[in-house]
C-alpha cells in the first residue's frame, strides 16, 4: 500500500472508531492488529486522530452551513423533513431566549483609554475591569443586573459573581453572561475573542434569521466569533495567560510571524510598524515592552539583521 491508501484506511478506522455506535470488541481487535502491522499505519492513524481531536472543540455551526444542510435534506421525503424539524428545535433549545439587540443604556458611564493606555476600573461590588490600549466601555448597573458594553478594544474582567445580580458583557452582536468568572474579551474590527481563565460563563449569539445559540465557556476555552460564526477552542490556561501579558505592559510572542508581531505593536503605538515582503514570515519569540516600538526595531536590525527605516510616524522593516 502506498501512503495515500494507508491514509484512507487509517481515516476509515478513525471514523468508525469514533462513531458513537457500532464499534464492537472485534473491531477494536482488528484495529489493533492493523496498527501493529506497520509503523506507517500507526503514524497515519495518529496524524489523523490528532487533527480530528484538534477540531474536537468546534461547537458552533455557521448559519450558512446549517442552511445548506436544510436545503439538502429538504429534497427528501416527508419523514426525513420531520426529523430535520426536530433537530432544529433542539438546536434552538440550546440557547436561552434573549433579546439580542443590546439597547445601549443612556445613563451609562463611559470609560476610554488612549492608544498605549491601560486603566483598571474597580467597581463598587468588588469586580475589576482592566482596559487595554485603545479601549472603550460603557458601564451601567442596577439592583438586578450589571452591564458592560465593550465598544472596542480589550478588557480583562474579574467578576465578583452574584447570582442575584447578573453581570453581562455585550460586544458586537454577542453577549457573555457571567457565572463566576475571570476572562478577557477582545473586540477587533470584525471579530470578537473571548479567552477564559477561571470560572464559567455563557457566550450568546443574536437572534438572527437562523436562530439563536449559546455556548458555555470554561477555563482554557477560547472563543472567536465573527458576524455569523463562533469557533471554540481548548487551550492550556497557561498559554491563554500569555494573552494577559498586556496587564504588565508586555507583549509575549512565541514563534509569531513578524506580520502578526507588527499588528500587535500597532495596537499600542501611534508610530506604526510596517513589515514588507519576506520579512513578514519570519517568526520570533520573546517578551517586549508594548510601548517601546523603537527598541523592538533596533532589535530587529541588530539581532535579526533586517533593514529598518524610521520615519516620523512609521517604522518600515524589510529583509
Amino acid at each position, binding site marked *: 500500500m502506498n501512503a495515500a491508501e494507508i491514509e484512507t484506511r487509517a481515516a476509515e478506522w478513525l471514523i468508525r472508531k469514533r462513531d*458513537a455506535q*457500532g464499534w464492537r470488541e472485534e473491531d477494536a481487535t482488528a484495529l489493533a492488529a492493523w496498527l501493529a502491522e506497520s509503523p506507517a499505519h500507526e503514524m497515519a492513524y495518529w496524524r489523523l486522530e490528532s*487533527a480530528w481531536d484538534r477540531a474536537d472543540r468546534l461547537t458552533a455551526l455557521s448559519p450558512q452551513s446549517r442552511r445548506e444542510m436544510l436545503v439538502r435534506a429538504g429534497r*427528501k421525503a416527508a419523514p426525513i423533513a420531520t426529523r430535520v424539524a426536530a433537530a432544529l428545535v433542539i438546536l434552538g433549545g440550546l440557547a436561552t431566549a434573549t433579546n439580542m439587540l443590546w439597547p445601549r443604556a443612556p445613563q451609562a458611564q463611559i470609560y476610554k483609554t488612549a492608544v498605549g493606555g491601560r486603566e483598571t476600573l474597580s467597581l463598587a461590588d468588588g469586580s475589576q475591569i482592566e482596559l487595554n490600549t485603545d479601549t472603550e466601555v460603557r458601564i451601567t448597573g442596577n439592583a438586578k443586573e450589571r452591564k458592560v458594553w465593550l465598544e472596542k478594544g480589550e478588557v480583562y474582567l474579574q467578576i465578583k459573581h452574584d447570582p442575584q445580580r447578573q453581570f453581562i458583557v455585550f460586544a458586537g452582536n454577542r453577549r457573555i453572561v457571567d457565572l463566576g468568572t475571570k476572562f478577557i474579551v477582545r473586540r477587533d474590527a470584525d471579530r470578537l475573542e473571548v479567552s477564559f481563565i477561571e470560572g464559567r460563563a455563557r457566550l450568546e449569539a443574536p437572534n438572527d434569521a437562523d436562530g439563536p445559540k449559546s455556548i458555555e465557556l470554561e477555563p482554557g476555552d477560547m472563543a472567536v466569533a465573527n458576524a455569523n460564526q463562533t469557533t471554540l477552542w481548548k487551550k492550556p490556561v497557561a498559554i491563554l495567560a500569555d494573552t494577559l501579558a498586556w496587564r504588565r505592559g508586555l507583549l509575549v510572542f512565541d514563534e509569531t510571524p513578524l506580520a502578526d508581531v507588527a499588528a500587535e505593536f500597532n495596537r499600542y503605538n501611534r508610530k506604526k510598524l510596517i513589515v514588507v515582503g519576506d520579512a513578514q514570515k519570519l517568526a520570533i519569540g520573546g517578551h517586549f515592552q508594548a510601548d517601546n516600538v523603537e527598541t523592538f526595531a533596533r532589535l530587529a536590525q541588530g539581532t535579526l539583521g533586517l533593514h529598518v527605516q524610521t520615519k516620523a510616524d512609521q517604522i518600515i522593516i524589510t529583509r
Partner: protein
Amino acid sequence: MGDTSDFERGETTLPKAGEGPSTAEVKAWFVREVLPLEATLVQFLRKASRNASDVEDLRQEVYMRLYETAKKELPNPTRPLVFRIARHLLIDRARREQVVSIEAVENLENLNLAIDEPGPDRTVIAREELRRMQAALDQLPRRFRNAVLMRKVQGLTTREIALRLGIAEKTVEKHLTEGVRALANILYREREAGGAP
C-alpha cells in the same frame, strides 16, 4: 461532543521494560514535535522531488525512519533530525535512480541553508491556531464539511447523519473519511505565512 479523546488507549503493543520509550510516548512526541513540521517538510520534499506523487510516499518514509529512531530514544531536538533524514532519503533515492542532475544537488544544498532558519511552523500561539482551524473548516468541500460539523457539533452518529441527509451510510462514512483527511492536510500543510490580521 460525541467524540472523546482516547489518547491513552492501550490498543497498540506495550513496550517491554527497559527498551526505550513506550508507544504512547512515541505517539505524544510525534504529535507534539513532528506534525507541526509537516508543512515545512512537505514543502522541502516538493522542491527537491520532481515527481509530485512521490511526495506522500517520501513523507511516509521520513516518518518511518523517524519512528525507528524514536523507538530507541526520543530525538531532541527533533527538527534537525527530520530534515537530515529527509535529505538522506532524497540523496539515496537520487543515487538509486541514477538521475542525479547537478541542479537537484544544488537545490539540496540551498535547501540546507533555508531549513536552518526558524520558520513560522512550530508552536503557534492560540490565536493563530484558532484562525487556522476556522480557515481549515471553511476550506473543506461543502459535503465533507457538513458531515464533519454534524459529527462534531451535533455529535450525530454516521447512521443519524445518513438518515438526516437522506444518503447512504457508506456515503456518509466516505465523506467523514475524506473530511478528516482534508482537515489534516489543511492543518498540517498550509502555513499561514504572513497572514496579518
